[in-house]
């Protein structure tokens, strides 16, 4: 499984914009080909003259739906990583109605108006100007109605989850429904709109098995395959190989020792993502430099890029271990946890205990190094139990550590989704 390419880190944010441009060109091209740059063609939908909007939209929806389902089912695409706009049922129903009214009054929707303006339609350009005016007005009243816009939240949820139906079955149902709608649409075009049927339509009286019908047959067949394929999500519980996870948990391969982590931070390594799973208040009080805060309850499938090395820590070890299991079960390949959590971090990195005075010289040298590390993180060594000992002298013999850089500690990648402020949706 290695798609969506972007979320697996195949290319960065900067290149994603170049991809966006390319995808946009294709999108605009097909919108124009479909006749969506023409307001009369779009409005004809609502007078049963030409049900193009319905045909194009539903063909596109079922194509992408069946395609993404099958790619996900056969392990190429991780559907759980495809961004799903959260549902706010009330505002979306009201917004949909307003949008529908705007559609019939203005004759376009935002995407199609771009195409119409690009092909010289002056009404399309005026429509765009009107939309910008609408956005400006909405922005001014938004702070007062913000609570209304966030009403009835259902979260990121699909129909399959909402109605507890198998995803594949739903795919098949939508495909069947779409073809039902196409046949009805062609019938209505002829009956109400008085339009002669297209040469290549589903309702052509000839017994020919034309391209449209072949296309329909293929999609329905694929839909039928989908209906019996089960869930597209790799993350479903049944697919977690518990035995392998248990074996992994048994070894210590998933541990990062505090001293090791301290070295990583001092080296300025940025090939890992340090995640604090405690509550924000605790995070604010103290956190390991460079960590980001994702409370346990907010760990989601897309909280980080999948190919990233992730290190969890919490106060002790338990919450980190739970986060480790959760995220490992979601299919992230390289997940680690800080051994002993923050307690161990305090004990071994921030306030290392001095060895007894009669300890071998090797321990003494090692301790001196740890004192230097502690200094870097703003901690200080503590005395060990037993006989008192002098303050560690050998520190001078070691190279002095650089103080932490003034503003930004050598942290992880700044562009992790957890920190990203801009919204991803439309």
């Amino acid at each position, binding site marked *: 499984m290695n798609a969506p390419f972007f979320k697996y880190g195949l290319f960065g944010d900067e290149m994603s914009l170049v991809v966006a441009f390319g995808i946009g060109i294709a999108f605009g091209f097909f919108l124009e080909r479909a006749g969506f740059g023409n307001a009369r063609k779009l409005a004809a939908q609502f007078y049963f003259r030409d049900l193009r909007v319905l045909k194009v939209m539903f063909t596109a929806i079922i194509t992408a739906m069946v395609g993404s389902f099958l790619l996900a089912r056969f392990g190429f695409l991780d559907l759980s990583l495809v961004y799903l706009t959260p549902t706010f049922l009330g505002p979306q129903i009201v917004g949909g109605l307003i949008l529908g009214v705007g559609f019939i009054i203005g004759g376009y929707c935002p995407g199609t108006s771009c195409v119409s303006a690009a092909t010289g339609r002056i009404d399309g350009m005026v429509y765009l100007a009107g939309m910008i005016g609408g956005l400006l007005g909405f922005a001014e009243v938004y702070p007062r109605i913000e609570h209304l816009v966030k009403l009835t939240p259902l979260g990121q949820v699909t129909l399959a989850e909402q109605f507890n139906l198998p995803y594949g079955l739903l795919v098949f149902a939508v495909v069947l429904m779409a073809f039902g709608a196409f046949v009805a649409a062609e019938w209505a075009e002829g009956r109400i709109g008085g339009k002669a049927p297209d040469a290549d339509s589903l309702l052509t009286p000839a017994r020919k098995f034309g391209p449209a019908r072949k296309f329909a047959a293929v999609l329905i067949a694929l839909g039928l395959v989908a209906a019996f394929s089960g869930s597209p999500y790799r993350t479903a519980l049944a697919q977690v190989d518990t035995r392998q996870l248990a074996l992994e948990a048994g070894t210590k391969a998933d541990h990062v020792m505090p001293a090791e982590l301290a070295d990583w931070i001092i*080296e300025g390594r940025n090939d890992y993502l340090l995640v604090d799973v405690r509550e924000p208040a605790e995070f604010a009080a103290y956190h390991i430099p460079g960590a980001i805060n994702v409370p346990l309850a907010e760990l989601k499938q897309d909280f980080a890029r999948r190919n990233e090395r992730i290190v969890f820590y919490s106060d002790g070890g338990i919450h980190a271990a739970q986060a480790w299991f959760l995220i490992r079960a979601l299919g992230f390949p390289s997940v680690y946890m800080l051994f002993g959590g923050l307690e161990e971090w305090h004990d071994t990195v921030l306030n290392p205990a001095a060895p007894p005075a009669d300890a071998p010289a090797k321990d003494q040298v090692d301790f001196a190094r740890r004192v230097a590390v502690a200094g870097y993180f703003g901690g200080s060594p503590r005395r060990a139990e037993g006989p008192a000992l002098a303050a560690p002298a050998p520190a001078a013999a070691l190279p002095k550590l650089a103080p932490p850089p003034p503003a930004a500690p050598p942290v992880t990648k700044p562009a992790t989704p957890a920190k990203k402020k801009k919204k991803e949706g439309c």
Partner: protein
Amino acid sequence: MRYIMVIDTKRCVGCMDCVVACKTENNVPEGYNRDWITETVRGEFPTLQMEIRTERCNHCDHPPCVHCCPTGASHVHDRGGVVLVTKDECIGCKACLAACPYDARFIHPDGYADKCTFCLHRVEKGQLPACVSVCPTHCMHFGDADDPLSDVSRLLASRPHHTLLPEAGTRPRIYYLT
């Protein structure tokens, strides 16, 4: 005559006395600096190596800032080859700022390019530049490189040294003893 500066990085502790002395002596406006301290740490923990040094205009033998100046405001002074700016000729085009690989210049709030002058007004009176004269660790030395008996010539002859960004081809005249 070829004025140069030799700075002993083994002695510099980054106390910033030179920075303060320069600001006072040359009346450098608030928020601007003609000289500054840099700290470089290199290596891999725990075998780190740190170098603290004081930096300023290198008064290069091959000064790109002088070559690109359209009005001749940036020029090489006859005395010791010091690179100077005549502020009444400078139009503030900022070409010299872009041309300097050391980023040693800045635009004075009055609108002209400004930078270190090796305190030529003091040197002409037989004094040392302000930064050199206040250095508490005596890590900075100023003098004539053409005079083989000068302090700076003897230091360069006796100790390993390097200059900053020699690969930029500017032939800088501030030497750092290592």
